[in-house]
């Protein structure tokens, strides 16, 4: 039953690989960003899973709370989520600019335009 008990980690691995695959295999820049988002989310999930204590409650300083989840990974992941949002924002802004300049967001088409430019 140990394999099933690590259910959360299996989800992390599947999300991580799916995200990385989308990132590598798709030419559409927006889809790449979706892949990156999935990839980063899997890491958040990994951290949060790590902090969970079986049977523990929220880490509040009050009477009757003996066992609680480790709050530190949650705090770290709040920071990482902010970083992830910022990265996505910058990337989407870049994609808008790329679309304005190249009239496409397909990477293979952009590459073709760029290599034609290099020859001239």
């Amino acid at each position, binding site marked *: 039953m140990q394999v099933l008990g690590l259910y959360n980690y299996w989800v992390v691995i599947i999300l991580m690989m799916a995200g990385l695959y989308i990132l590598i295999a798709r030419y559409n*820049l927006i889809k790449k960003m979706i892949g990156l988002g999935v990839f980063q989310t899997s890491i958040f999930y990994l951290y949060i899973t790590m902090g969970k204590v079986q049977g523990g409650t929220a880490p509040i300083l009050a009477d009757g709370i003996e066992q609680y989840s480790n709050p530190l990974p949650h705090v*770290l992941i709040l920071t*990482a989520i902010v970083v992830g949002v910022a990265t996505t924002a910058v990337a989407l802004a870049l994609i808008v600019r790329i679309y304005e300049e190249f009239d496409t967001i397909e990477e293979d088409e952009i590459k073709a335009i760029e290599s034609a430019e290099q020859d001239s």
Partner: protein
Amino acid sequence: MIADQLPALQIVIPMLAAPLCVLVKRSNACWAIALVANVLVVINAFALLHQVRTDGVIRYALGGWAAPTGIEYYVDTMNAIMLLLVSFISCVTLVFAYTSVKKTVVTGKHYLFYAAWMLCLTGLLGISITGDAFNVFVFLEISSLATYMLLAFGSDRRALTASFRYLIMGSVGASFILIGIGFLYAATGALNMVDLAQRIPDAESQRAVLVAFSFLTIGLMIKAAVFPLHGWLANAYQHAPIAVTAFLAGTATKVSLYVLLRFFFSIFGPNYSFGAMLLNVVLLPAAIVGFLLLSLVAIFQTDLRRMLAYSSVAQIGYIVAAFCLATQSGLTAGIVHIINHGIIKTALFMSVGCIIYRVGHAHIGSLDNLMKKMPLTVTAFIISGLGLIGVPLTVGFISKFSLIGASLERGWWMVGALVLVSSLFAIVYVGRVVEIMVFRSSRTDTPEPTGMREAPMSMLVPMYVLIGISLWFGISGSTTLSVASEAAAALLGGYQ
């Protein structure tokens, strides 16, 4: 007392300068704010280096929260060197940027450019000073996000795609580092680097530590552009505004190499990284193939910036090869080369910046007879080019000499021999450009372009400041070597 607060000021000053630039909005005023902040940071870094060398390691608890609870800044000689290098190169390139930014960056966006520059500086300094593993990731992302923005300021539209590709690669690299830190935390329950270093020996047998180590290695190799993972670098350096290229070439990859050093030596310890983990088998071949192949690739480039970008990857190969020796003299050679290469590559990109400013492009083939038109710029290029090759009396000689010495000492004479071979390639790629610029006379069928004269003083002066320093370090190498060997000893000795 202000002397106690130096580690915090190092980060706070540039971080406050960034929003100030956004509020002020006037191009010249922003530049002045950035420059003042940067000069203060250089002085601060100098003071820190002095303090560390006289009084030993500084451990600064941010906000008064002691280490396991709060974030700690840890400054030893190695950190102080990086802080000084990064802030100084940023300062000099900022002076250089004034004129070149006016020409290349869209008017009205200058304040954002300088704000992003300050944020990038904040991030790079933060990575160098922090003693907390998770904090490394946060500062890494601050500097990376600012870098993507700076790269996209390039006048060519290919700057946008180069920036996007770097964003993808950089985010994957940073995410890998985040995963690595997560596994380390899971295995040891610590994020503070000193605590990590103490607890890892007990946790070494856990597979989580091994996984953390692998993720961190790959992530940092992407960030530092070590050979098979250097793909993002050439496009980014070629299309970015040249002042940004000069700044990043001297600092960004070097800071990532510093993190690599910190993790491999201080946290995991050389015995784990290079003994049990056999990192030599992975990293050393990558480094060697890197410096041989990329020096060769550099020979065939038609764009001067691209040639120098590939040469940068080759130089990173030397540095990593030096780290792989994992001895006192090997580390010293690596650290010295971080400093020396940072200085000469920045000077080289500055001279290319001068050429682009006057000529308008950097196609090597059409730079013929440039010596007559821009003698000072070309002379600067030649001097720092010689430094890149490693001719005696230049800084390149000091670092290559110590690298070869260290590899012989370790008994790996092949590494030394291959360094010499790649130096021959360097002679070819630098020599080819110099030959065109100095000896080839202008083609008579093309009309003489007008306005060809020496680059403005505001670009020449910072460039010659760097060249002066590189010559000084080249002739009396003992200053850098002694500081670097102190840093190497601190790294090998582990945390006190």
